[in-house]
């Protein structure tokens, strides 16, 4: 694949990286979010501070971590602290500017389900659960959701709200007293969704050569598009070169070349 072609995963990593400003404090997970942060650090945001829920602060790993507790995130970090400090002194304290979230289901209001498909008591599919996602969704100043438009991944309503979006059964974020702004962008493999004034996710950008209909067909509610619908700028040659040759040469998270 030449550098003027790119895979959806590469576009997702680039789109996420563009959302990060230099010097911000990012609560980051494994996979595409981690790639996006490293891409941002290698380009426009060299002073991004990465915090992992495992307690590693300011990590600069010399290998791509398979888990957020990877020893490469510890050796050479600026600080390692206990998890009580991570959640109380960093997250609840309001020090986290950006939190990354993903999930099996994302609904119309940006609520995320990583707990169960079906009934909680006897689920069809038991998912891992919250981990730190519930509190990241509540406390991070803003969150970025990275999730593919696979079948049934974007229902009108999730089976279980693990991480709250803009409007849950209880009400709006403001009514429920959540400090953070919630998911300001949902980065999919075909385009980007953003909340409208009511908190409902609408399509604001499609990736090159993607039609609105291709997105709407994969979303479980009558998806609206913001007018005028933007088209996401493709990755630069530099982005592609960094992703393929430096950041994920084994394509652990970029997946097979499209």
């Amino acid at each position, binding site marked *: 694949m030449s550098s003027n072609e790119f895979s959806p995963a590469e576009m997702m990593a680039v789109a996420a990286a563009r959302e990060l400003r230099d010097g911000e404090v990012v609560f980051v997970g494994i996979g595409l979010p981690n790639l996006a942060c490293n891409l941002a650090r290698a380009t426009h945001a060299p002073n991004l501070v990465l915090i992992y829920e495992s307690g590693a602060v300011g990590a600069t790993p010399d290998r791509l971590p398979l888990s957020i507790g990877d020893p490469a995130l510890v050796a050479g970090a600026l600080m390692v602290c206990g*998890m009580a400090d991570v959640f109380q002194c960093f997250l609840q304290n309001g020090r986290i500017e950006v939190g990354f979230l993903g999930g099996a289901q994302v609904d119309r209001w940006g609520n995320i389900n990583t707990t169960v498909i079906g009934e909680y008591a006897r689920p069809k599919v038991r998912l891992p659960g919250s981990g730190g996602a519930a509190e990241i969704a509540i406390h991070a100043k803003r969150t970025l959701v990275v999730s593919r438009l696979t079948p049934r991944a974007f229902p009108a309503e999730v089976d279980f*709200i693990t991480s709250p979006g803009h409007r849950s059964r209880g009400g709006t974020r403001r009514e429920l007293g959540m400090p953070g702004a919630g998911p300001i962008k949902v980065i999919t493999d075909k385009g980007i969704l953003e909340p409208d004034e009511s908190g409902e996710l609408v399509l604001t950008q499609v990736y090159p050569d993607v039609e609105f209909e291709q997105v709407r067909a994969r979303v479980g509610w009558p998806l609206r598009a913001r007018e005028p619908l933007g088209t996401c700028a493709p990755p630069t040659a530099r982005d592609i070169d960094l992703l393929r040759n430096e950041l994920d040469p084994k394509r652990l998270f970029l997946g097979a070349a499209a």
Partner: protein
Amino acid sequence: MSGKVCTMREAIAQHVHDGDTVVIEGFTHLICFAAAHEIIRQRRRNLTLCRLTPDLVADQMIAAGCVSMLVFSWAGNPGAGSLHAFRRAVESNQPPLALDEYSHFGMVARLSAGAARLPFWPLKDYMGTDIPKVNARIRSVQCPYTGESLATVPALNPDVTIVHAQRADALGNTQVWGLVGTQKEAAFASSRVIVVVEELVDEVVIRQDPNRTILPGLIVDAVVVEPWGAHPSYAQGYYDRDNDFYVDWEVISRDPARLNGYLDDWVFGIPDRAAYLSRLPTLRDRLTADDRVCAGVNYGY
């Protein structure tokens, strides 16, 4: 002097009983598989197992029928897949498994309350989530100053906590570096504490650098010396995480027969950790840590 030093067999036999609430902590780092395997080998039953991230260690204990309740916040095989024994238990009730589920912050708060011997811990969390709808232990309290409502979780005070660490002395004064997770809180919250170490060191080594000590001997009941006892988890400065095994587990645990075969070969079929290691001759070559020793600091005055 020998102090509290004993074998894993002795430590589990004496301190882990059927029906106990057991914490085996360690966030990716320092997960004590050696202790879990001995618990399985001694066929403990009806344990309430508590871990933020159940990990393979819980999948194995659930498959072996040791666990009747799991207290947790994230049950997966990070980067590699699912915990299929856990999923079978929850999705098909094979075997039955009760769940007491929180988020990471909730679990950390439960252990913090336990360590401080407070009956609850307040946190700003859970608004807008369905987690409290399926867990009545998550409640709320009103701030006596602002009047605002805060979420609460109850203290978690286990019968026994098992901490894997890099080193301790014979009295259980324990030092850890790298990720510390919630090991300190879990140990202080517990009625009994078993410390499992890569290295038993003289008290002098501990006293050289007292800021590294995370557990004082006065709360430790048993010290077990078990090098490589955390494999396939890791010990910073000693050995790397066996990511290949974590990936393999996806295949092993997917098939109940294969999983039972694993337990027969690697747990029931062998007497102890030494036998486990003797079957992994390439482990040291593959995973022994490089040297990356930091400078010391001056405690003089």
